[in-house]
């Protein structure tokens, strides 16, 4: 029976490999654009983001200013482009710190014995009890506002989720047949950890990270919007949203475009994360 199912799956899977979803293509294109905006913003943006021109203040989107200008006459599109690096950096750094902290907790729980496992699990549950953003706010209340604390705060609030997933992975791999086979061969624990347990348990990490970056950017922007992250005049999407808020009724472009970038970035990174998941699943099925 299993041969039958495998065969039908294989027959059906072949054409699907060739099909690349349009959403994935768009997400890749957008990610490349973001990368350019990060690395060479001067090449992408038409103007200096902080160059003020009071006479041009509050001009709506036009061929000269694609996204319009703000209250000081600064080009919104240029600010969005120059803000990319700041926003992405916060997102990536927050995800990285969340994953690192999560991994540390997971390793402690999985290999530290019963006491550590119990302690870490209860800690994770307590952290889970707070909504993530609330937890981040709590950290900022204690550590004070600023881009670095905002990053760490977002990282900390995502850590429990990562810790729980990674702990499960580590435990499953540790109990697997191949780890036991390695033990029977007389290999040292460090060698088993390095060659089998970590590589296999951490394999889904890349996917998790891609899915997490979108969320981290949204949260970091939310903190900036509340004035707790990047501070003016730094171009950062959340901070731009916050600065444009008083003019929501008269100059919609001040808030819509940075907001759109946040949404598109989150969507693109989620779509890429899902695509990676599919690729991994397909590799697992056809290898």
């Amino acid at each position: 029976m299993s041969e039958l199912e495998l065969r039908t799956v294989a027959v059906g899977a072949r054409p699907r490999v060739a099909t690349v979803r349009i959403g994935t293509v768009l997400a890749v294109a957008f990610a490349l654009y973001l990368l350019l905006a990060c690395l060479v913003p001067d090449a992408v943006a038409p103007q200096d983001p902080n160059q003020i021109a009071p006479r041009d203040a509050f001009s709506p989107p036009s061929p000269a200013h694609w996204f319009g200008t703000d209250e000081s006459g600064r080009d919104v599109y240029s600010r969005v482009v120059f803000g990319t690096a700041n926003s992405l950096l916060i997102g990536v750094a927050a995800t990285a710190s969340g994953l690192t902290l999560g991994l540390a907790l997971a390793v402690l729980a999985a290999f530290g014995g019963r006491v550590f496992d119990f302690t870490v699990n209860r800690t994770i549950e307590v952290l889970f009890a707070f909504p993530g953003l609330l937890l981040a706010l709590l950290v900022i209340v204690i550590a004070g506002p600023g881009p670095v604390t905002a990053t760490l705060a977002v990282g900390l609030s995502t850590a429990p989720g990562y810790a729980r997933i990674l702990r499960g992975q580590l435990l499953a791999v540790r109990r697997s047949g191949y780890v036991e086979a390695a033990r029977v061969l007389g290999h040292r624990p460090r060698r088993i950890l390095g060659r089998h347990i970590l590589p296999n348990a951490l394999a889904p990490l890349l996917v998790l990270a891609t899915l997490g970056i979108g969320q981290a950017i949204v949260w970091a922007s939310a903190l900036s919007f509340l004035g707790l992250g990047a501070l003016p005049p730094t171009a950062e999407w959340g901070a731009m949203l916050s600065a444009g808020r008083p003019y929501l009724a008269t100059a919609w472009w001040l808030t819509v475009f940075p907001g759109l970038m946040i949404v598109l970035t989150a969507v693109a990174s989620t779509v890429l994360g899902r695509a990676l998941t599919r690729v991994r699943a397909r590799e697992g099925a056809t290898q």
Partner: protein
Amino acid sequence: MNELLDVAGLSVRFGAETVVQGVDLALRPGECVAIVGESGSGKSVTARALLGLAGARAEVRADRLVVAGRDLRRATERQWRAIRGTEVGLILQDALVSLDPLRPIGREIGDAIRLHERGGAGAVQARVRALLERVAMPDPDAAMRRRSGELSGGLRQRALIAAALALNPPIVIADEPTTALDVSVQARILELLAEITAQGTALLLISHDLAVVSALADRVLVMRGGRVIEQGSTAEVLGAPQEEYTKRLIAAVPDHAPRAAQPGRPAHPARPAVLAVEGVSRSFARDGGRVQAVDGVSLELGRGETLGLVGESGSGKSTLARILLGLETPDAGTVRLDGEDWAPLPERGRRARRHRIGAIYQDSLSSFDPRWSVGRILRDASRGAGVPELLGQVGLAPELAARHPLTLSGGQRQRVSIARALAAEPEILICDEPVSALDVTVQAQILELLGRLQRERGLSMLFISHDLGVIRQLSDRVAVMQAGRVVEQGEAAALFARPGHAYTAQLLADAPRLSVGRVR
């Protein structure tokens, strides 16, 4: 003509691949026809095509496809549904995945009745109860309220058979109905199936196990590569096979003379014990209580001998193997490796000696790191020998080193698993059901390979299996385990000829044998 099932020229294709070609099949009331073949032969696909279940991507063609008087060549899904259950019942191999784990089996069986017939809740209940009685379910009232996971494998299979019989279908298709079961349970299920055919139901039996087939079938079809290559009465096909492939299948059934009686091997080798177990016990916490998995077991494995360990699932064989491998510490008793303490050693002390005991598992695939190629797996385990050399020892081509275990056949995987065990240069090999998941011909090859390697290298081998035929073929001595205890042990030939313990005698009696000229 009173054929219930009349099929001619059945073929099934998946895309460009033809998996079943030109199969003719007829089934009369009270008759049992068996389709025999190895995995990939197309036997299961044939059975599923008869129920319209070959799959959405399958292209099924037939010159004639008549089930219970209805031509089903152009049947719609709706027409198929009317056939399934009412005209044809289906029994699958694994009852655990075939029954909904969250619903009591009484409800599950009652569903079939409610779907196809009218009747109040009380009437359905009574029908379900009668069905469970018919399949000899002990305490049917209690069983109705249990979920499938709460029943043992044999009782689950009975529940599944009851579900298949719920609407009294004139035809029952059983796809490997006893493959997942222990011998004694298997014997009861086979009796039950024989009873059902005696009552007039036509049975189409799909199996790779010739012994099971010989016990039940009137006629046999041998399938290979999607074609029926030989057919006839069971006595003809199994007694005087015409095709080379059928002969090989029959020869591969491990039911031959015990090994100790083979020429050139002394029946009573006086060998020093290389691995000795004395009074070993191990219990586990389960459901608030404790389960005694291994209970005061004493065994000795002599240098260069093969000790067969037989027992049904749950008898403690695998726990004992894990204790011997130093993966589990016994609660009481001693394990000695070459006269030195083994079990009480701390992990650090064991590690240096671990390579002396190699292990081969039933599910070799899960014992390989999923990211690694065959070559990397062997290099990782090797204590000097090169990968091509290691592959050569187990009869595999050096090109396989670059392949991934997932892309290998079951037999090739088990060879890689043996090569890995040998790469660590062990003196002792512990094989836990190493051939249970393999087809008979592949099984015979692996057993042959293990026998040869043992002779060449003077390995001591503990061979664990639930299959008496396999144990008999390979073992010098045999130990029989039941409920955590060794109830009997001795020379293989003597033990099989004159079992001393009632349980051993029962196991031997229940083991299906390839017998031609059956009387029913």
